[in-house]
């Protein structure tokens, strides 16, 4: 019998509180070894890891690449895999490979098979793909089953056809099917981070509201503690609540710190929409067990009658190249916001002599307006600025041509009162122009209304 089958049988025979270890909120950036060992010593019934998010932007999804380095990702995967097999408990990984589309999932699976081979491990693995087939989605668009939210424009058939990858965030259903299929390891493409941890307790009959609330907190590791951090966190869930404890003794889960975590990256700290229903935290209570542990209760859950799957897709917008430079000339800095468009016009007159205007060129001036979406008026000028010119063009060569031309004419651009006639800008190194590869934007961020959400994410079983 495999790990999930064993756990389910054990809990059916003799119910008890369940312990879940949130090993990593972002697998692939390193799991602290000491606190992870402390977590394993507590013999959790499940080890879960979130591996990705939409927060990292559209390019990873579009390109099909991981945000984390292969070396660190492999090391983290090996750590959790060896521990889970050592305890014979399910290992559950969600949003494989940073963005959870086919290439991300396949790269993650290849690493897992490779680790298993090298370490002589053998196990049953469930795999759930999150890619939404284009014909299915096109039909959904035509029949009005896709809606917008957060002010996103309506999804068009072109969006579906032209996106590089489109994934749906799976909820608990596919995980429950996988756990019921008697497996040791579950690897999901794009998935709700809550489903990683809530699915097993829900399957075992624990209250879904509590399981979801617990999952929402432990998917971030020890971020809910003071001081917050990425150490593994242990949750012990019973039928009335759950107790949180960081596996790093320096991190304390206090009632306030845990309650405040409900704010994190959420637009509403009281209600959270999940594919399978709504989590209501308005009556949640947080009580200190001791100095470092907090008990949480009171969350409630409403199953949905109309399942919706959040879709994410990214489309290529061109090739990106940037110019990196700075200035310490007060006269240049004082005028630069007016000068840069003039430099852009000059560049256009040169690179568009024989070609149409087919690119965008924009500048961010760090020290003035490089970071802030809103800049107050009448700020005193900084002593130095860093400037990034960014071109997005149809080809890598074209983007490179634009930023290289820009570099030269920004360096020597004349302006009233100019004293530093040998050059306007400093380069930290040369070449100061960098090709960054394809650039993407999210063109799919919509809700898909379905009758059977689970049917979108079939569970495949593999023996490794």
């Amino acid at each position: 019998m495999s790990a999930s089958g064993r756990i389910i049988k054990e809990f059916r025979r003799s119910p008890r509180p369940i312990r879940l270890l949130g090993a990593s909120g972002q697998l692939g950036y390193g799991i602290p070894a000491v606190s992870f060992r402390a977590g394993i010593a507590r013999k959790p019934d499940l080890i879960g890891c979130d591996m990705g998010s939409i927060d990292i932007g559209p390019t990873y999804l579009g390109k099909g690449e991981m945000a984390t380095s292969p070396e660190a990702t492999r090391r983290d995967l090996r750590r959790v895999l060896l521990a889970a097999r050592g305890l014979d408990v399910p290992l559950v990984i969600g949003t494989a490979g940073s963005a959870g589309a086919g290439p991300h999932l396949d790269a993650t699976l290849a690493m897992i098979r490779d680790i298993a081979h090298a370490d002589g491990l053998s196990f049953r693995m469930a795999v759930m793909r999150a890619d939404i087939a284009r014909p299915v989605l096109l039909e959904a668009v035509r029949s009005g089953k896709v809606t917008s939210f957060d002010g996103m424009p309506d999804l068009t058939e072109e969006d579906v056809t032209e996106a590089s990858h489109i994934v749906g965030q799976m909820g608990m259903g596919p995980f429950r099917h996988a756990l019921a299929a008697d497996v040791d390891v579950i690897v999901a493409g794009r998935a709700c981070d809550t489903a990683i941890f809530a699915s097993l307790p829900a399957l075992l009959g624990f209250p879904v509201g509590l399981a979801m609330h617990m999952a929402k907190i432990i998917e971030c590791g020890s971020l809910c503690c003071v001081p917050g951090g990425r150490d593994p966190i242990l949750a012990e869930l019973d039928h009335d609540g759950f107790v949180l404890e960081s596996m790093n003794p320096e991190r304390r889960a206090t009632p306030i710190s845990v309650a405040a975590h409900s704010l994190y990256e959420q637009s509403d700290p009281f209600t959270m929409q999940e594919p399978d229903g709504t989590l209501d935290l308005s009556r949640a209570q947080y009580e200190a067990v001791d100095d470092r542990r907090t008990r949480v209760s009171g969350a409630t859950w409403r199953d949905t009658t109309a399942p919706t799957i959040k879709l994410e897709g990214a489309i290529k917008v061109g090739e990106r190249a940037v110019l990196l430079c700075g200035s310490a000339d007060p006269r240049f800095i004082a005028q630069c916001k007016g000068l840069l468009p003039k430099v852009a016009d000059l560049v256009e007159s040169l690179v568009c002599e024989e070609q149409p205007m087919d690119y965008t060129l924009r500048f961010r001036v760090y020290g003035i307006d490089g970071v802030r979406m809103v800049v107050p008026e009448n700020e005193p000028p900084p002593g130095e600025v860093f400037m990034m010119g960014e071109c997005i063009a149809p080809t890598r060569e074209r983007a490179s041509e634009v930023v290289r031309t820009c570099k030269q004419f920004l360096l020597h651009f004349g302006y009233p009162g100019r004293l530093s006639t040998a050059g306007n800008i400093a380069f930290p190194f040369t070449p100061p122009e960098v090709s960054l590869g394809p650039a993407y934007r999210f063109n799919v961020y919509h809700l898909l209304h379905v009758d059977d959400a689970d049917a979108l994410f079939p569970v495949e079983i593999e023996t490794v």
Partner: protein
Amino acid sequence: MKLSDIAQVIRSKNAGPRRLTLDIIFGSDADYQRVAQSPGLGAENIGRLYRVPAEQVTIIPYPVGRAIKIVMARAIMAGDPGDLDVYGAQQHAPLLGIEI
């Protein structure tokens, strides 16, 4: 007194790629109560600071976490060409100087 003199945490982050959320967390119930009543943290003033209409600013008091949450739309979707802050983690500065 400025908000940055009272609050324990003043942070910003995306809540999905199209919305920005700002959290202000206090170290004591007294500090929370004092600021929760302040017009400096009303939708009017926040809208003025972020140059968005007040009716598009949502302010959510969260006493159990001694916190106040502010939510608004991002002008540019995270990661779109022209974005300045893909994670939205550095848009809290306008809050720091709010007079309480």
